[in-house]
């Protein structure tokens, strides 16, 4: 445990020291991963996802605020899906705009949750509510739900592709009603939305409670509740596509990842190195203020106890 704490402190010190360089690098990879995953989710027009386009765009995003990735990814997705159908791209554009107007304009700086929950729904949906409850709280319910909806939108849009390609008639009039109908009647999506909302609230309440080891209890209770709700929900909706083994393994893996995330949560909570310039009547000042770093040292206290070779009573 001490070794882990030392590693965490060193990581924190490392982030603090190289924050100026690491932030753009992380932003670059965030934008790059989002665009690459959009290629998998939509991917009707591969030319816009070529590395010649994606790398420079991600590079520009690295120096822009986080919200820029949401806008760039939205533009990519809408332009991409135009190759499938103009109507579907209109619906997607409206969805992105609704999320922006009803949520992101109101609570700025949370667009990454929409993107991350959209990405996680693909592989590890159970991780979303645990991490969202620990990092953000109930405010995260709305963007998580939006992310899940966008993911299922991409699935239903893909299902529409063979219909559009196969039909010789003009199906443009029925595309949007069909898409909206299948999307909002998708029981699997509705099940995930309910589970995510309930688990976030439940995990958050335990996480913020004043009981001992609240974070530990929150993760265990949140994971258990999620497994229970997923099993019950799957039986209720009688969906054969959801595999029980996947649910169990996914939920347990999410619980383990949540523990790791909780342990390293403090790593990003550091004071920044500040470089400021100012002046008074006599001088110009160029100051680099470096926060003090405390790194835990290995607490080694070796106490050697050897049996005395001479007994006290020997001299007598």
């Amino acid at each position: 445990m001490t070794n882990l704490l030392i590693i965490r402190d060193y990581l924190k010190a490392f982030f603090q020291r190289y924050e100026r360089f690491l932030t753009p690098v992380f932003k670059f990879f965030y934008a790059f991963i989002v665009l690459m995953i959009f290629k998998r989710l939509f991917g009707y027009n591969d030319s816009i996802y070529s590395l010649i386009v994606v790398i420079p765009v991600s590079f520009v995003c690295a120096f822009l605020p986080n919200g820029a990735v949401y806008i760039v990814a939205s533009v990519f997705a809408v332009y991409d899906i135009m190759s499938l159908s103009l109507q579907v791209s209109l619906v997607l554009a409206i969805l992105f705009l609704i999320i922006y107007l009803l949520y992101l304009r109101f609570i700025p700086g949370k667009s990454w949750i929409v993107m991350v929950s959209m990405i996680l729904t693909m592989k590890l949906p159970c991780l979303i509510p645990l991490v969202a409850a620990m990092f953000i709280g109930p405010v995260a319910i709305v963007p998580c739900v939006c992310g899940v909806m966008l993911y299922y939108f991409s699935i239903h849009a893909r299902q529409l592709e063979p219909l559009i390609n196969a039909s010789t008639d003009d199906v443009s009039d029925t595309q949007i009603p069909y898409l909206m109908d299948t999307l909002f009647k998708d029981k699997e999506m509705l099940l995930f939305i309910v589970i995510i909302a309930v688990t976030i609230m439940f995990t958050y309440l335990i996480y913020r409670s004043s009981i001992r080891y609240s974070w530990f209890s929150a993760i265990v209770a949140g994971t258990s509740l999620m497994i229970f709700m997923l099993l019950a929900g799957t039986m209720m909706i009688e969906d054969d596509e959801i595999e029980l083994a996947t649910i169990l393994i996914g939920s347990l893996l999410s619980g383990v990842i949540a523990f790791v995330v909780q342990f390293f949560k403090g790593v990003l909570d550091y004071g920044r190195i500040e470089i400021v310039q100012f002046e008074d009547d006599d001088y110009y000042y160029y100051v680099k203020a470096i926060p003090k770093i405390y790194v835990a040292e290995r607490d080694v206290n070796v106490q050697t106890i050897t049996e005395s070779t001479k007994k006290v009573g020997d001299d007598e």
Partner: protein
Amino acid sequence: MINEDKVRIMTKCACYEKNESDNNLHIAGYFRRDFVRWSILKSLVSATFGYILLLMLYFLANYEEIFNLFNKMQYKPLLIKILVGWGVVLIIYSIAARIVYRKRFEEAREGVNDYYDTLKKLRGYYIAERDSSPRFSHQEGDPLNNDEFIDY
């Protein structure tokens, strides 16, 4: 000679101005009521646009049904539903915006108050410097004599 304590305080102020001031000083420039009301108004405008887009989605998905209603001249119940929905959205957003923007104002005011306290300390150094130095004379209009130097 450089006064290290003064440099520390100036650095603190400069860091605050660099990171926080854009938003917080702007917010703290308002009265709380004005800031909250103005923010609620902006939120309601964007909520209305969002609601219009939601309606657009609804119309696109159910256009046949809606055309039928209009053909039969039975659009009144639909219009009433739309207006009630808009009212509900506005009420929810005004309550949520009131809570969020009040909290944001309080946080900004707290940060700005700390910043003003630091400025006050800095002012103390300048007054002490002025009093001890023959270079400066007590003049009318000297900003250090003015209580408005730090504008609350």
